[in-house]
Structure formats: C-alpha cells, structure tokens
C-alpha cells in the first residue's frame, strides 16, 4: 500500500514539475488591427520567427477591428484579461494611456534601446504625454489626402482640389447622380473615418478642440463654418451615410474625388495587376469590367489643402504595452516589441501595405530593403513621392497637438466617436449644426471633467 502511495506521489510530483516546465513559457497576446487574412498570415509568420528565436515566449495573435478596439478593450479590462501588446492608432494609445492601462516605463525602455533620435520627431510627439511619458511607441504611419481623377480635372479645366473653393467646385461639377456618378467621398457614417476627414477640414479653417492653454474651444464660429461646409459637400457624395468602403466607387470610375490614406496606393496599382490577369484571353467576357488599367496613372493626390491655413492629416499607428500584473509578461512584451523593430521583421511588416505602412525610423526610411517592395508598388510612384509621403509623417496636424503641446483628452474624444456622431446627427437626423455642436461640446466636457 505504502509503495503505491509513494509511486502515486512521485508520479504526481513529476506531473506537476512537467506542468511547470510547460507553464514556464510566458504566454502573451498581441492584438492587431490588421484584420485581413493575408496580413494576419504575414504577422503570424513574423511571430513564429520571434517564437523560434525566443522559445520561452508564446504569442497569441488576435485580430480586432479598428472601430471595435475601444469596446473590446473596455470589455477585456472589465474581465481582467487585456492583451499585453496592442497595435493601434495613436489616438487610442493616448486614450488608453490616460485611462491608466498602458505601461509607460516599458515603452520608455524600448524607445531608449532603439535610440530616441532614430524616431521621427513628429511621430514621437503624437505618442508622448504632456509630462513627457510615452503612451506607446510609434510603429508605422500613413498620410491622408484627396485622391482625384487628374484626367477628368484636366478635361474640365478645373484646378486641383487644394482649397475649399476648388474642392466644392469640383465636387459640384462632377456630381451627376442621374449617371450614377458622384463628386466626392467624405465620411458621414458615425465611424473614425468621418472624424479623420472632418479634422483635416477643421484645421484648414483654423478650428481646434483645444487652445494652447488647454481650454476647450471646440464650439467656435470656425468649427460651425466647417460643419456647414461639410454638410454642403455631403450633397455630392453617394447617397446615405458613407464610410471609407465607398472608395470602391472610385475604383469603378464612378467618383471624381475621395478621401483616403496612402493605403490606396496598393489597391490602385493592384487594379492594374488585376486587369492584366482578368482580361484578355483568360476571361474574354469580363473585358476588364471594374478595373481601369490607367487609373493609377490618372490618379493624383493632394495631401495638404487650405481654407484659412494649410492642413495635412495622417495617422501614426503605434505599438503599446499594457500594464501587466506579472513582470515576466512585461518582459516578454518588451522583447516582442523590440523584435518588431528589427530590420527583417519591420520591413516584412511594412511591406504588407506599401504606401500605407511607412516607417517611423529614419534609418528604415532610407533602407534599400524597404524601398524594394515585393509587388513593385514603390516603383510606380517613384522614390521622390514615397520620400515626400514619409516626410509628411514628421509634421502631421491633429486635434491632440496644439503649438507643440499634447492634449490627451482629444484621444478620448476620438475613441468615443463624438465628432462622427455630431456629423451624422446634423446630416441625417435633421439636427441643426449649432445644436449638434452644443451636444458634442457637452459630451466633451463630460470627458474632460471625468
């Protein structure tokens, strides 16, 4: 009997020991907003390589839609299982940082390890708190612009859409619903895209959320003017609430202008690639329907436009490390983030969307490895255009930054979609501009006083 007990005891001890060996692998999860399956595959490949190099760490990749991220984080933090590493826009990093979820110390450590001077200043500024702490690490970025049919503009004798006047004039000119053709796409669905487009208009009219002293100055004449202008412009968009997905109408030749990030460079040149394979002898009947091989040549982009001042907008996507109860998890998260900046991993990541994902490290922007993307998209646009776009990341204008100072409440306002709701209400629910702005202002005050 005693023997049996001893054997059982030994066996169970062995079992526990084995378990602890398996347990010794630190499990962390990585939330990414790159939800498309191809991008997921590439990221998984990067993570697999990381795991092969670090066999004490296991990383679980979780895709989360950009628009759902605040909701999912709220739910995860209520349930006590927030991810260790999150890829997200800088606004959200700021919002989560202000809520006390992010680990500033961990971010600082990785930034210092890479070298602070390596990062573009503008990118770093967007992720740095007023007290100088890092909400997250800038990872890649894109610039927003108006993409337009340069051939149509030329034929109609119109100037490029670089001022409020030119934009509205062109939108009116090309809008022809009877022919199922529209002037412009701006965001009107209550989603992040609407705020991204609206912000660029507001700043080009000198309208801000905060002044340099941190007072909320959202409810201003300049802002109301912007909203009125936005409403007017909406008349020349495809019917009903619209978001970035409507860019397809442009690719189909049914729209003259649309707001989009440099992510579209990929789709535009891929349309050409697709045309090559979908027409001709392979699929005679299709005749290239939906694909215009010349679209990439006929498309131009204006990244900065003005009413009373120049305005350029873009987004820095960041990597954030959350506060973990367990220091081994924080350590694993730091190693993962550091690894993602290694040349091979970084370039592989950025090449998922050439044009859309641009490096924030100086050395990487000049690297030949980066310029040589597998789809040859950079060649289409030329080195200068790419350099111009990447350079744009250094001086983005956003509501969070006023005269070089950072206002974190703005990130929270973005996360809660207050401006998109205001736009939707005033366009589709018949609320007057002033009433919608008052309502938005009241919500903003609630956030500031929280």
């Amino acid at each position: 009997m005693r023997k049996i007990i001893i054997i059982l005891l030994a066996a169970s001890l062995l079992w526990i020991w084995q378990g602890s060996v398996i347990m010794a692998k630190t499990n962390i999860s990585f939330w990414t907003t790159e939800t498309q399956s191809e991008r997921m595959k590439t990221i998984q490949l990067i993570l697999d390589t990381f795991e092969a190099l670090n066999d004490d760490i296991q990383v679980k990749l979780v895709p989360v839609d950009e628009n759902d991220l605040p909701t999912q984080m709220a739910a995860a933090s209520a349930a006590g299982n927030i991810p260790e590493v999150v890829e997200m826009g800088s606004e959200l990093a700021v919002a989560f940082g202000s809520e006390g979820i992010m680990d500033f110390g961990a971010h600082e450590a990785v930034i210092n390890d890479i070298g602070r001077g390596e990062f573009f200043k503008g990118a770093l500024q967007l992720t740095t708190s007023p007290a100088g702490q890092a909400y997250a690490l800038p990872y890649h970025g894109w610039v927003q612009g108006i993409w337009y049919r340069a051939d149509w503009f030329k034929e109609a004798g119109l100037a490029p859409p670089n001022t409020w006047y030119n934009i509205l004039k062109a939108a009116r000119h090309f809008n022809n619903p009877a022919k199922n053709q529209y002037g412009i796409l701006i965001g009107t669905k209550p989603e992040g895209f609407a705020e991204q487009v609206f912000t660029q208009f507001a700043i080009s009219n000198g309208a801000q959320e905060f002044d340099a002293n941190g007072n909320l100055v959202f409810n201003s004449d300049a802002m109301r003017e912007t909203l009125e202008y936005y409403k007017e412009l909406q008349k020349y968009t495809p019917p009903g609430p619209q978001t970035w997905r409507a860019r397809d109408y442009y690719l189909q030749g049914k729209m003259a202008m649309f707001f989009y990030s440099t992510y579209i460079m990929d789709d535009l040149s891929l349309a050409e690639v697709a045309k090559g394979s979908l027409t001709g002898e392979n699929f005679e009947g299709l005749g290239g329907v939906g694909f215009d091989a010349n679209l990439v040549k006929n498309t131009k982009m204006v990244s900065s436009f003005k009413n009373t001042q120049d305005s350029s907008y873009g987004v820095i996507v960041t990597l954030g490390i959350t506060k973990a109860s367990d220091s081994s998890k924080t350590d694993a998260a730091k190693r993962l983030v550091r690894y993602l900046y290694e040349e091979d991993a970084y370039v592989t990541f950025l090449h998922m969307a050439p044009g859309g994902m641009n490096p924030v490290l100086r050395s990487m922007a000049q690297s030949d490895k980066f310029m040589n993307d597998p789809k040859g998209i950079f060649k289409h646009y030329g080195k200068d255009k790419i350099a111009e776009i990447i350079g744009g990341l250094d001086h983005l204008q956003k509501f969070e930054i006023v005269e070089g100072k950072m206002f974190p409440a703005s990130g929270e306002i973005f996360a809660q979609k207050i401006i998109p709701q205001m736009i939707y209400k005033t366009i589709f629910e018949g609320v007057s501009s002033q009433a919608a702005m008052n309502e938005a202002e009241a919500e903003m005050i609630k956030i500031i006083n929280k």
Partner: protein
Amino acid sequence: MVSHPGSLAQQEARFGWKTVAPSLLLIALLIVYPVAYNLYLSFFEVKLSGQNEFVGFNNYIDLLADRAFYDSLTVTVIYVVGSTLGTTLLGLGVASLMNHKFPLRGLVRGLVLLPYIAPLISEVFAWQFIFDPVNGIYNHMTVEVLGISDERVNLIGTPGNALLVVIIFDIWKNFPFAYLMILSRLQSINNDLYEAATLDGANRWQRFWNITLPELRFVVGAIVMLRFIWNINKFDEVFLLAPNVKTLPIYTYFTAFTGTIEQGLAAAIAVVQFLLLIGLIFLYIRRVLKW
C-alpha cells in the same frame, strides 16, 4: 405495514427537487445572476476601473428625462408590432397555401424554410449588397430598368427608411417559423369539421373564419407571444443590418459601449426593457389568450 402517510409524497418531492436541481442551478447561474447583477449595476455609476459609485435612482431619473430614450421606445414598438404582425400574417397565408395539394409541394415546403435556416450574417451581406445605393440591384431596377424612381437611394443607410427595411427583413427571415407551426396545426384539424360545414352550406371564407381560425387560436397566440419576446430583445439582425435603427437593445449597446460610456445607465435601460416585457406578456396572457 406502518408507514407515515406523507413519506412517499415527501420522498417523491425530494426526488423531484434533485432531478430539477441541475437545471435550477444552471438557470440561476446563467439567467438569475446576470439579471440580478444588471439590476444592481443600474443603481451605480459604473467605472471601467471597477470603483463603482452608488447613485440610487439617478440613472432612472436621467433615463426618464432623456428624449432619445422615448425615441428608442417608439422605434421599438413600431419594430416589434410591425415585425410580429408581418411574420404571423405571412406565415398564416403561406401555411394555408401549402396545406393544399399541388405538384412538388414537398420541395416548395422545404424551400420556404431557407431564409429561416440560412446564416444571418450572409443574409445581411446579401441585403446590403442588394440595396447598395451605387452598385445594388434594387436601385438598378427601380431607377434604370423600370424607371419607377429617378433618384438612387440608400434605403438601409437613411434613418427614415431603415426601420422599414429592418421590419421587412425580419418578416422575410422569420415568417417560416410561424408558417411551420401553423402548418403542423392545420394538418391536424379534423377533416370531418370541414365536410360537415360544407354540407351545412358554408363557403370557403366561412370555413376559414369559423373552423380554421378558432383551431389555430393557441398556436397563433404562442407565435405572437414568442415573436414579441424575441423581437423586443432582438439585437443581431438590427445591429448588423442597420445599426442606425435604435431599438432598445441597440440603444443600450450604444449607451454602454460608445460615446461617454455609461454602463450604469445602460443597465437601467435594460431593466426598464425587462419590466416592460414582463408587463406586456402578463397582459397578453390574461387579456388576449385568457389562460
């Protein structure tokens, strides 16, 4: 044999409790606890950090003063009444048709069930594609082919139409449920009744009104009640197809998770919805079904 008269009954009762205990436990865990916790939360200002602040009836007072809540209530009533009536009537009509003999009846009966059994998400995408303002077939047909309208519309996106679209979608998706239940009842109605009525000179309409309908009373009653409960609580269909139709569950979701996140207030909305539902069902059972 001396035995206590109650003992057998007591034993049975004990056995009875034992048999239902697992289900009771599950219900307590999965239904009673969340309902109670929701009720509890509705008296707090919920903070994401976990430090909730007791506010008494403030959430309810805020709610009753909120115009958006009444708007949402109105939308819910229109949605529930419209979709319940629609599914039941369409189900009744189709069931009456399918009760007649015709070639390939089996096949048709099966096909009618398709909208009910197909995955919701694929149906929603199909509808969104059909009603796409620029590329959808609906606008293509009405504007270009038939010329009924000279303007392309975003039927799902525009708040004014969206409610109607969501109601029609629900009717289309869920009428097979009503149809299935009514048809099975129809088939069990004794044919003698109809023959006797025919002999008495009753016409088709009189037979339907005086025999079919009274026989269907309870099954239709049950359908209406079930659809009523389901549709007041319906989230997925509405949210996926047109989140701008703010029925109470959608409104609760937006209050809880977007804008200035107010989960205490959202809990209060859920409580009001729950009470409303219980009250209406009680009334319905008493007054309409007379159970």
